């Protein structure tokens, strides 16, 4: 019994040691300083105009949750709520691609009123996606009268590439861009049972992007979120 427990503990330690790693690179380009005051809000919107990828709504939610958390959090308006209120001006094919276009749309009184009611200071566009860039290996599973089991080894690489563009709505100018590139390799060895060692590429890109975005919007405040792993 004692030997069995030791075996389980060793397996757990081995799994922890082998857990897949992710590297995250964050770049920031600032064109001006942010002036977010108490009561002001920001909205995070995913860019959805490209035909071959789509910025994941869960990534946008993830960044929003992190930058709005804690005492130093920023008020974040939900993406779907915002696009519903301003339908049809923020749909994938109608959303403004430039500040000039936003300026034209904002001439509409109803539009400006909605943004004023939400106290929107900044519109933050998130563009990019996470994709599997390569995969190799194979795992075979079989079932028989004596039981079932798998054997083999699989590995795959994932890459996240996101860019956040911060629009200053009140002053009608682009304030800066933040990019987050993350890479990681996941492994799946299978000896009777498959053991997934997953690299949390998108989650780490989200955390890195959110931390940088928070410091961009509130340079003097900390953030209650763990850094990239």
């Amino acid at each position: 019994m004692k030997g069995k427990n030791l075996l389980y503990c060793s397996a757990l330690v081995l799994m922890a040691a082998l857990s897949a790693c992710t590297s995250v690179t964050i770049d920031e380009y600032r064109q001006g300083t942010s002036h977010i005051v108490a009561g002001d809000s920001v909205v995070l919107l995913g860019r959805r105009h490209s035909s071959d990828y789509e910025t994941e709504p869960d990534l946008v939610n993830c960044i929003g949750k992190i930058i709005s958390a804690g005492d130093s959090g920023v008020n974040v308006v939900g993406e779907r709520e915002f696009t519903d209120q301003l339908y049809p001006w923020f749909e994938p094919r109608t959303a403004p691609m430039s500040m000039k276009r936003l300026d034209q749309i904002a001439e509409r009184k109803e539009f400006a009123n909605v943004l004023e009611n939400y106290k929107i200071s900044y519109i933050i566009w998130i563009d990019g996606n996470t994709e599997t860039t390569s995969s190799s290996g194979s795992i075979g599973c079989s079932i028989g009268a004596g039981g079932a089991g798998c054997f083999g080894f699989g590995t795959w690489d994932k890459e996240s590439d996101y860019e956040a563009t911060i629009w200053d709505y009140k002053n009608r100018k682009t304030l800066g861009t933040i990019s987050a590139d993350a890479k990681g390799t996941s492994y799946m060895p299978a000896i009777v049972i498959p053991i997934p060692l997953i690299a949390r590429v998108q989650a780490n890109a989200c955390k890195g992007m959110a931390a940088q975005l928070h410091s961009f919007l509130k340079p003097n405040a900390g953030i209650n979120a763990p850094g990239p792993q």
Partner: protein
Amino acid sequence: MNRTAKIFTLISLIWLAGCENSLVVKGNFPAPMIDKLPHTLGVYYEPEFSEYIYKEKSEDRSMWTITAGPAQVDVLSKVLPKMFTSVIPVNTLPSPENPSQAELIFSPRIDEFQYALPRETKVNVFEIWIKYNMRIYNAAGQLLADWLMTAYGKTPTAFMTSKEEAVNEAAVMALRDMGATLSLRLPEVPEIKAWLVDHKPNPLSDPNAPLTQDPDAPPASASLSKALTGTHSEEGL
């Protein structure tokens, strides 16, 4: 039937069920924030449109059945009342012998409906593409515009938990796209634009416009009559 045969039958049934997917498109569609055209629109939905069901016919693909008719009527019921000052349902298309009370009649049709799954395209998105034929008639039933409009919606794979949920979300996005394009582009369709120029309402029909005539004088036109009874009109897009 022995135990092995029972297990084999069960697995076969599960496998066969896995090849058929059925979905009734459901979603919440917002009303658009646009200016109304100062005209009365009649809406006529053919049953082929209001009860539209897409059934995959290709044997090489999964047997998808997508019921989109009620959802697209739902979108239009939110969009059209924001596009025109008055929207009335009509039971049939008008004719010179039987003209409509509405100034324009809108009767949409689906020409094509397509879907694509990540397994087929190797792109991590579920896609829905719908080709509409937006037909607009005048009160006498004469076809004014035959506007071919495409609507497109997609949703990433990672976000959704099941294929049905993902295809539903892609369909909802396509219907939102249809509503957005219709509400913003209809007044720009050349035939409709020309009709709107020819049927500009009398400026006196705006109750907010300053009256330059004697308000006690008899109305000179139907639109002036509407103005005096308080019909509101706004500029088009």
